[in-house]
């Protein structure tokens, strides 16, 4: 159920983000989705890619610090209130969301969000109990990459 996300440390300076994206492109790695957390001094680039081990290797070979984290890909109704209902389920389960970000595509009226939870296993249990779809990697990349 869990998806591997890779995170990279980036200094908040011109050119530093582009250099890392370029390194992945040259290795033929497609980025399925991403988010960038930024502060005045640095940023954390979080990526979802099919072959995360290869991506990690490419970035590390380029001298980057890379970390992998388990995140969940969750289906959400692509309509007003869809996300609100999902978050209510999460809140009701007493589950803490560290951060989240969205995919850029929809699928049969459903969007997919990436969630980083403090406790992903508790989140899976709470979501499945409510019949909310948590995608595994196979499903996710099939949808994302067709």
């Amino acid at each position, binding site marked *: 159920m869990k998806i591997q996300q890779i995170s990279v*440390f980036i200094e908040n300076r011109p050119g530093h983000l582009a250099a890392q994206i370029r390194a992945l492109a040259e290795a033929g790695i497609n980025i399925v989705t991403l988010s960038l957390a930024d502060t005045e001094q640095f940023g954390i680039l979080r990526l979802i890619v099919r072959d995360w081990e290869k991506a990690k290797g490419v970035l590390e070979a380029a001298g*980057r610090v890379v970390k992998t984290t388990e995140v969940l890909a969750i289906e959400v109704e692509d309509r007003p209130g869809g996300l609100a209902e999902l978050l209510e389920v999460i809140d009701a389960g007493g589950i803490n969301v560290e951060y989240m970000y969205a995919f850029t595509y929809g699928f049969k009226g459903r969007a997919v969000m990436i969630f980083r939870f403090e406790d992903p296993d508790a989140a899976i249990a709470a979501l499945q109990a409510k019949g909310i779809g948590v995608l595994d990697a196979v499903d996710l990349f099939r949808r994302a990459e067709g």
Partner: protein
Amino acid sequence: MRTLWNDAGGEFHPVCAPDFLPLDRLQGLQLQRLRATVKRAYENVALFRGRMEERGIRPGDIRSLDDIRSLPFTEKTDLRDTYPFGLFASPMNEIVRVHASSGTTGKPTVVAYTEEDIEVWASVMARTFACNGLHRGDILQNAYGYGLFTGGLGAHYGAEMLGMTVIPISGGQTDRQIMIMKDFGVTAISCTPSYFIHLVERAGELGIDLRDLPIRAGIFGAEPWTEGIRRHAEEQAGIKAYDIYGLSEIIGPGVASECTEQGGIHIFEDHFYPEIVDPKTGEPIPDGESGELVFTTLSKKAMPMIRYRTHDITSFITEECACGRTIRRVKRVGARSDDMFIIRGVNVFPSQIEAALLAVEGVQPHYQIILTRQKGLDQMEVQVEVTPELFSDQVRDLESVQRRISKSIEGTVGIRAAVRLVEPHTIERSMGKAKRLIDNREK
């Protein structure tokens, strides 16, 4: 004697008499005191006795001032290795004061004074202020820090001995400093030059022009500064800016001072015997050539210091000074023979920063210290390369790493640093060795 006083309204204070001793009298006094100091150190301090025995030297072998060259050097590390009281030559019941400064590993270096030492210290600081053209009737705002640092109390006692009115305001609270300077009719201020520049800028923001106030002298020390800073301070504040020199291991402030001629610092050499040596070989070098300043205390009872290496680079000025003082001058101290730097009056070695970094779990010793001056105040930024152990996918974890590093540095050197995390392998390494310090402060 020539005119001893450059300042109208001043009168000669007897404490200043040794500044004008004829050379033969001065050297006679130095030799007599040197012999007594060496004997005291040998008899009461195991480290000095051990080193002299290794060389087969006994105190009686010191028969001339030149014989000082046979004595072993003392380094700052000797204070650390004997922490806290190992170099004391007096029993505790004769020690009336201790001060401490930053050491190279986080432990401070401790210095001690007997009642007599405090009196000598006050006298050399009184002579310092007299050199700077100050006297009874002057109102001194003493903005050196009071506390373990020697600056505040050292200046305080000297100013009182000279008969000045002392305002023991200590450091910080700039707006209050400016108010008191104006309201009390302050005529002189003692502080670090960088703090004074900051004070001038702040006064400007408050709409106060220091040139309109009675203040006429700045007594600046505890960090190296330049002619550029002097010109700036003198023009912006309408004062004369004087350089004073000292180090706690020798006594604190009051080792040497500029006179009103502003042409190099006079060493109070009836109490502190100066040598200038080749920093590599330790051998004496001809007068006038640059080398490392070395001091032997001639009067200190609680903590005599034999051939202490300051790592400050300077040279003797061989011409007589127009002020008439016979005590020797050296050029103002700027460069150092080691990597120590001074920020806001505090001595810091990059190795201390390194120790503070390594005390934080996951930090590797890949760092760089960047010094800048903003609004007249020195700022220290420490750049640290991110390691896999430190890195997290969450911003707050990285911010917590920055805070932990900053706290560790402040706990070690007492100075707050801005910590910036940088990508791995981005800190410049020159010839295999990282360049630890980039000093972008105005020269």
